[in-house]
């Protein structure tokens, strides 16, 4: 039967699982920081539209959630070591 060998053995071996976990770590944290940056970014633009002096602060606050995806990247690298 076609596909019998797939049912018999595990679909993913250890290397596959590792790759998938690393992908998950990056994807989820990437989505999370994207969402957070979107919220903060629109808010920062709102404040900047009224007061241009807030550009520096807005920029810094907007990129802070970037740390989330960096943690994801670190975890992904650790998994693959």
């Amino acid at each position, binding site marked *: 039967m076609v596909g019998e060998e797939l049912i018999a053995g595990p679909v993913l071996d250890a290397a596959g699982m590792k790759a998938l976990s690393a992908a998950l770590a990056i994807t989820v944290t990437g989505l999370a920081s994207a*969402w957070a940056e979107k919220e903060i970014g629109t808010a920062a633009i*709102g404040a900047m539209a009224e007061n241009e002096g807030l550009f520096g602060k807005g920029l810094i606050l907007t990129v802070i959630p970037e740390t989330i995806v960096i943690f994801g990247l670190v975890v992904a690298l650790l998994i693959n070591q």
Partner: protein
Amino acid sequence: MRLLEKFWGGKKSSRTSDKKKKGTSNYAYAVTRVRAMKSKLVPKETYPRLLNMGIDEITRFIQESEYKNDIDELAMKYSGADLAEHALNRNLALTYEKLLRITAGELNYLITEYLRRYDVWNIKTLLRGKQYNASVEEILESLISAGEFTYTFLSELAGTESYQDIIEALKETEYYPILQEYDGNNLADIENEMDKMYYSSLFEAIGKPRSKDRKLFARFVKLEVDVKNLSTLFRLKRAGVEQLDEILPLMIEGGLALNTEKLAALPYEDFVEELRKTEYWDALSGVYSPEMKSLNALESKLKKYSLESATTYSHVSPISIVPIMDYIIYKHNEVSNLRMIVRGKEAGLADTLIKDQLVVI
């Protein structure tokens, strides 16, 4: 939590009664922008300085602040206190228009509903003006085109011959059924009915609040109703009106903590006694005395209380409609303060008298 709510939005919306959610609202953007706008309002330290200035100096001061464009554009047509007043009204209308421009979806819908109060205000002004034969100029001074009616439309109405023409022109609006009742003498009743209609349609727009920010918004509007009812009651009670059938039609329904029916039935002393049990007494106790001559101090205390509560609410729910409402009433307060100073100075009132009228936070 908000994220989860957004993902489940489709499924949840059928269960909640927060009606008319059209599209998504850009809360984060609108709220921060409005907060930045609030930081540009005239600070309270400025008012004593303004009181020491003459009208031209005040106009100059206004011109150097957020009202620059308005003064510049109107300076050709008006001068003195009229210039300041027109500029203030124009700026208020434009500011509210801007709020509508920068918001979307549910937020926009609720603000539009809230700002209908200016339509009511304008219709009242027009009818009052016609009843007392005010000149077109005088009527134009008091119009604030922050609602749905544009300034051009309103000034056309102000230029009409009689109140019948105005009512005829408003045939398509939802106010027409009430306005039809107007026969030239019952202006007070019509005004009352319009206020009531405004609040009942606002409550309808809010719906039965489920989410936290809607609840706070509803609370905010209810508090406003209470404050209105309370100052009406104070005036009536002081004037010695005690018949229930005279008082109750003047009360707006849907208040927060006041039992208007119970309060309306009491004579003045008992009424004040009963008020001591409510949350409003903290605000009033400082200025209330049985022999006070005018209610001005009391009313400005009440206004101050509602402004302060709005700020508190806006801290409870920072990313919601409440901070925007907070700004709306603060802006209105600023304009009315500046207007009082300008008009007070023009009429030659004493500084202390003007100062008592100001609501400064």
